[in-house]
């Protein structure tokens, strides 16, 4: 064996690392993501990291769950919904209204928010699933903006001002935790459970059916699949996850308003994460959230004040680079680049 054969450097070293990681059992892979993260609040409470770091990570784990949720309908079933902020808002508002107006604990409010979000998703899907491609995207976006303009005028839920958690005492039953870092664990559990569910989906019959519908709807029907029914199923599941995420979010920030939940940008944030990471993959939303959320939080911090908006310009540029150079997401890009075992390129 020559020296050159033994030398593994540059791209090849990444290939080796990648293949190492990819060949680990899923439980270990998830452990590598979720295990060390359990220590983040400890790092904060011991003063090793800033609140901004922990806040960013809390949102990152929330968005892992949201990204997975969108991935079900957008990545697996291939329906580009630009209206998922509606489901996020339904979850958030349901939880907030029940707690603030009626004193009903979010332990009920959050799942109920998920169920109502699911119902909203099914209504949206029932109306829009006869459309495809751009048209579906456009119709869901229009629906989301219509809901935003309604919420902006709806006095019961505080119209454009929204709802504040004034007078809500912290505690287990109000799901408002003091100190706030406890919320990190709520998001962590949410992200973990959703990741496990999606892992299940990825390898289930349903996962295969949805991917098939995504690839060729007519051929899927020809295999006996009721395409509409499975799209609705995916929409219901996806909406439920996003709705629960909305509930957890409002409990964390203790405030909900149309701009906060329904803005055009929120509609898109949810889908950017799986798209950056890789559609229809289990690790896509995880990778996407870890790239997107820190970028968003830190650029926002950097450009706060005079240069409001520059953060979004940067984000637009990043998005352009992703859709041009890795249109199938980073996870798929990595797999295509490093996944094949042509490794050392030996000439034997």
């Amino acid at each position, binding site marked *: 064996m020559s020296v050159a054969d033994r030398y593994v450097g540059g791209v090849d070293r990444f290939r080796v690392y990648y293949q190492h990681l990819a060949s680990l059992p899923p439980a270990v892979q998830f452990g590598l993501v979720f295990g060390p993260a359990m220590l983040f609040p400890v790092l904060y409470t011991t003063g090793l990291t800033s609140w901004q770091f922990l806040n960013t990570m809390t949102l990152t784990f929330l968005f892992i769950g949201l990204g997975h949720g969108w991935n079900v309908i957008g990545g697996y079933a291939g329906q580009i919904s630009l209206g998922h902020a509606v489901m996020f808002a339904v979850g958030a508002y349901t939880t907030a209204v029940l707690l603030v107006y009626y004193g009903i604990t979010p332990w009920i409010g959050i799942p109920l928010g998920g169920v109502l979000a699911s119902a909203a998703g099914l209504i949206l899907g029932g109306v829009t699933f006869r459309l495809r491609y751009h048209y579906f995207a456009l119709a869901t976006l229009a629906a989301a903006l219509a809901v935003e303009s309604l919420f902006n005028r709806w006095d019961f839920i505080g119209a454009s001002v929204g709802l504040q958690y004034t007078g809500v005492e912290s505690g287990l039953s109000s799901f408002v935790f003091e100190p706030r870092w406890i919320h990190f664990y709520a998001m962590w559990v949410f992200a973990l459970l959703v990741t496990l569910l999606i892992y*299940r*989906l990825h*390898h*289930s*019959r*349903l996962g*295969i*059916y949805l*991917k*098939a519908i995504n*690839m*060729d709807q*007519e*051929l*899927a*029907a*020809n*295999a*006996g*699949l*009721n*395409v509409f*029914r499975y799209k609705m*199923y995916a929409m219901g*599941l996806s909406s439920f996850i996003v709705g629960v995420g909305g509930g957890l979010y409002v409990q964390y920030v203790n405030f909900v308003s149309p701009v906060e939940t329904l803005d055009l940008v929120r509609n898109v944030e949810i889908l950017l994460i799986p798209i950056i990471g890789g559609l229809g993959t289990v690790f896509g939303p995880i990778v996407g959230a870890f790239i997107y959320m820190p970028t968003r939080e830190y650029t926002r911090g950097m450009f706060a004040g005079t240069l409001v908006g520059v953060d979004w310009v940067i984000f637009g540029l990043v998005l352009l680079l992703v859709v041009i150079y890795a249109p199938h997401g980073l996870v798929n890009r990595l797999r295509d680049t490093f996944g094949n075992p042509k490794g050392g390129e030996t000439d034997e």
Partner: protein
Amino acid sequence: MSDGQTTDTVRRTTDPVLTVDNVTKSFGGVTALDGATLEVRDGEIVGVVGPNGAGKSTLFNCIMGVYELTDGRVELDGTDISSQRTDVIVNSGMSRTFQLARVFPDLTVRENMLINQEHRNERLVETLLSPSDQEVYDRADELLEFVGLEKLASSPAGELSTGQKKLLNIAGTLLSDPEIVLLDEPAAGVNPGLVDDIAQSILDLNDRGATFCIIEHDMDMIRSLSEYLYVLHNGTNLEQGEPETVLQKEAVLEAYFGQ
């Protein structure tokens, strides 16, 4: 229409599985099918031939509910299935392949098979929580072995050759044990070496009880396969009967080769 009875020397004794009765389909002003009629009985291999534009593929599309019928009736096992949704028809026991082989390219060959499993009594929650039954897996692998694709079971279906895709399509249609399979030009675009394999597979499957209705341009293939033949021309029945006899008919030759 010519008198179909005179050439009908084949004894067709089994029960009809598929009955197409006077099916008409027009697109705007153009009539693609004009009262087409055919019958496929249990255990048969029935051929459908006709010059280009005779309406053969339109007929399959009408039977499978891709198009809504303008007029007429399609029955499967005596039940009216006219203009039903495709997946409903598939779940009632009829499947089809396409003229241009179609697969789900990013799914593996085995997944392409599994997707054709019985969906009739499938619960939604079950599809998320439990994988396919072992029986279904075994049956899929058995069928793949039967058409000679078992070694490729874990490869993406997009990597198969056209002929292999067609074999995969045929195998896939059989997974749910349908009453009848419609094959749209199974030999078209396939390299000659594989044509015989496909024909042999069809015959073997027929021996094990599968019923087929085949559209085919390759006359040798249709002669060797089908026991009963329909000739379509301009959307209507021209002739029907035993292949050898029918293909000698003057009207048929004329339809194919002009004056």
